[in-house]
């Protein structure tokens, strides 16, 4: 290398500019990595929900306390038989009582109440792939057995959820873009400050025959050296925050529903953030120094 490594080290220590650079890079990498990993996590959760719910319908048979009518278990049995007979349905699964209890638990915290309340029976059905069967088709088929049967399609609320996640993805992309721009501006300002205080050294280096590229490259190397550890710390903190987020969301999705290749892509994309941040910071340093040097003789 043309210029000795320690030539500009004191410039970066001057007025703690190097420390400022380290903190800025660390914060920017944290924000960008967390934005990306949080968005990836939400997308993954939505994906698992979408995949799990897209082909499913839920049949709800209200409980009846009328002793003159058909008993609830018979009504359920009849409905299940009709559903099994429908060619467009792949699976029919009445939800066991304990699963219904678990679903209702957030709204009815006292288990004793569930025994006295008229809790409906739920039947989970899965349509065959490419089936055009709608909730209304199923309801029409079951109406003769259970007049007040309800059939829920999950498409509507999944669509709302997908829209929400799409919006969050855009916001995350905007946050990442904003952190990138902020990083470029911060590094440029630091380089401006260093050049301003070290103008005499820059002039001397020019007089001694240094090229603009020599000097700018030296700034690139220093910035890269300071950015790496800062970037790594920011990345690890963001990963810890994401792990915390996953922990809080553990009841809402099962990460094992995603294939390993999907996790690999998400991990690689997230791991690219600190690497790209270091590259951006280093190139921003070189570019801004080159611009400044061109204004000097």
């Amino acid at each position, binding site marked *: 290398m*043309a*210029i*000795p490594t*320690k*030539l500009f*080290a*004191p410039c970066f220590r001057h007025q703690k500019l190097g420390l400022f650079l380290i903190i800025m890079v660390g914060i920017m990498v944290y924000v960008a990595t967390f934005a990306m990993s949080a968005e990836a996590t939400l997308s993954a959760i939505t994906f698992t929900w979408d995949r799990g719910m897209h082909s499913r319908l839920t049949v709800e048979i209200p409980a009846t306390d009328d002793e003159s009518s058909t008993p609830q278990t018979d009504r359920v049995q009849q409905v299940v038989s009709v559903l099994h007979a429908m060619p467009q349905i792949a699976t029919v699964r009445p939800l066991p009582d304990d699963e219904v209890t678990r679903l209702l638990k957030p709204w009815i915290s006292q288990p004793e109440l569930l025994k006295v309340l008229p809790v409906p029976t739920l039947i989970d059905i899965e349509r065959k792939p490419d089936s055009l069967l709608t909730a209304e088709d199923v309801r029409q088929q079951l109406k003769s057995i259970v007049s007040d049967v309800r059939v829920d399609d999950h498409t509507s609320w999944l669509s709302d959820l997908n829209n929400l996640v799409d919006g969050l993805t855009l916001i995350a992309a905007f946050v990442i873009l904003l952190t990138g721009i902020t990083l470029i501006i911060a590094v440029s300002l630091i380089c401006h400050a260093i050049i301003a205080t070290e103008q*005499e*050294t820059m*002039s*001397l*280096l*020019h*007089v*001694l*025959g*240094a*090229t*603009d590229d*020599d000097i700018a490259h030296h700034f690139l190397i220093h910035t890269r050296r300071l950015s790496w550890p800062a970037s790594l710390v920011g990345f690890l903190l963001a990963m810890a925050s994401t792990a915390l987020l996953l922990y809080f969301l553990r009841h809402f999705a099962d990460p094992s529903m995603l294939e390993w290749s999907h996790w690999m892509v998400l991990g690689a994309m997230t791991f690219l953030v600190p690497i790209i941040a270091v590259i951006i910071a280093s190139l921003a340093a070189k570019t801004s120094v080159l611009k400044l040097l*061109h204004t000097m*003789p």
Partner: protein
Amino acid sequence: MVKADNSTTMLTVFEGVSLSYSPGQKVLDDVTFALPSGGFYFLTGPSGAGKSSLLRLMYQAEKPSSGRIYLFGHDLTYARRDELPLLRRQIGVVFQDFRLIPHLTALENAALPLRLAGADEDYLQRHTKELLTWVGVGHRTEAYPSELSGGEQQRVAIARAVVNKPKLLLADEPTGNVDDETAIKLFHLFDELNKMGTAVILATHQHNLVERFRKPALRLSAGHLTSLASSARVGEV
């Protein structure tokens, strides 16, 4: 870069060169002269006469407001920015205030031009140590500038200026911050360098030294070139 036919044998040629830092205030006004290669020249004149500015034009720290400057036969008016480093590497500069980098040792300071030129590390170490010994500070190679006396600092600065064997050495009041005895020793050093083939242009306002060494002298006064003393050795434009 344009090569001037009439100035290929000249060290430097100034043709009607003027320099202004602000409108209407000329630091140099229509300066014209030519210096043949290999000589030793004094540049004299009172403080503020424009000596430093003329040297700055030669090492391209400034661009002339008007006129043309040829250096080693190259027209600096048309020199591209990326050509300047190669030209500057043929020039050594000694400053009155030494301009050593405080956090580099004497050896690192003196070796800087060789590093910038991409010299081999072994050669760089060996040659710079030899040179520091030659200028009389071989025992202080690992000392930082703040640990050196004014004379020692100037010797390191001279070593830095000549370490890559320049064609031209420019010295701007090199003895301004040292005592008379050291000044005379430094002048002898410049004279020896000149005898080894490096042209020297030395700006000074110390008349006693100019008279003692009897070298051709350009005299500046208020931005004008007023005389070319010992003109027999100074080329005509």
